[in-house]
C-alpha cells in the first residue's frame, strides 16, 4: 500500500545520507577548511568558514594578522556585485578585488579578510586562483545557466 511513498522515502534517505556525510566533515557547528599553498615562493594561508548562507574567507601570508575585512554580495537587479570595506582598507584596497570576483564567480554572500602584501597584483591574482580552485572543489561554483537548445 505504501510503495509510492516508500520509493520516495528511499530517495530522501540517500539524500540525507550524502548531506550528513558532507556535514560530518565539520567538527562542531560549521565546516572549516584550512590549507596552505606555496605560490611564487610566497607562503599563503587560507581559511574558509562555511555557514549555511554565507562564507568567510581569510587569506594570510607572512603573518597571521586579520588584515582588511570586506563584505561582498550579489546585488539585484543586474546580477552585479557590491563590495564594501568594513575594517582596514582605508588607503589600501588589497583584497577588495578578490572579494568582488569571488562573488561574481560563485554567487555567494562573502566576507573576506585579506592580509597579503599590497602592491603585488600577481600575488593577489594567484591567491584568488587558489581560493577559487578550492571553492570549486568544495562545490561552490555558480551553476551556469542552461542554453536553450541543450
Amino acid at each position, binding site marked *: 500500500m505504501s510503495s509510492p511513498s516508500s520509493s520516495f522515502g528511499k530517495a530522501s534517505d540517500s539524500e540525507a545520507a550524502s548531506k550528513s556525510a558532507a556535514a560530518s566533515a*565539520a*567538527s*562542531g*557547528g*560549521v565546516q*572549516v577548511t*584550512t590549507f*596552505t599553498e*606555496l605560490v611564487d615562493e610566497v*607562503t599563503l*594561508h587560507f*581559511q574558509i*568558514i562555511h*555557514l*549555511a*548562507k*554565507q562564507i*568567510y574567507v*581569510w587569506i*594570510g601570508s607572512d*603573518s*597571521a*594578522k*586579520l588584515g582588511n*575585512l570586506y*563584505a561582498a554580495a550579489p546585488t539585484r537587479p543586474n546580477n552585479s556585485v557590491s563590495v*564594501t570595506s*568594513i*575594517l582596514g582598507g582605508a588607503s589600501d584596497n588589497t583584497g577588495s578585488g578578490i572579494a568582488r570576483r569571488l562573488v561574481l564567480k560563485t554567487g555567494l*554572500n562573502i*566576507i573576506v*579578510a585579506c592580509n597579503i602584501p599590497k602592491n603585488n597584483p600577481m600575488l593577489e591574482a594567484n591567491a584568488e586562483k587558489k581560493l577559487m580552485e578550492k571553492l570549486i572543489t568544495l562545490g561552490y561554483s555558480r551553476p551556469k545557466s542552461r542554453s536553450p537548445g541543450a
Partner: protein
Amino acid sequence: MGGLEQRFPVPLKNFSVEIKGNNTDLVICRYDDHFLVMATQIGTMGTILHARKEEGVTVEPTFNVSVILGKRDEPMLLAITRQLIENISSSGSSMPLVLSLGLKDHSTETLKGIVSAVVENRLW
C-alpha cells in the same frame, strides 16, 4: 621539498551549543592581531561588531565598541561585545575583537548564553 608541515597559524575552535532552544554555531579564532568570534543561529554572520581597548597612560582602560556592518539599533549586540572585550582585557590581552552575531532573538537569556559559551571556550 615537503616544507609545509607547519601547523596552520591560526588557532581555531568550532562548536555548537543550544541557547534558549536555538542551535547556535560558534567559531573562535585567534589571529596575530585580533580575536574573531562568530556566533550564529541563522546561517549567516549577521551583524559584525568591533571592539578595542583604549589604554590611557594613568587611567583605567576604556573600551570602544561599534557596529561595523548590520544592525545598529540593537543594544544587546553591543552589550555582548562589551562583555567579551572586557573579558579579553581582564585575561591580560590587549588585542581587539571582531565579533559576528547572527541571532534569532535578542533576549537577556541569549546574551548570557552567548557570553558564557564564548568565555568557556576562549582562546585568550
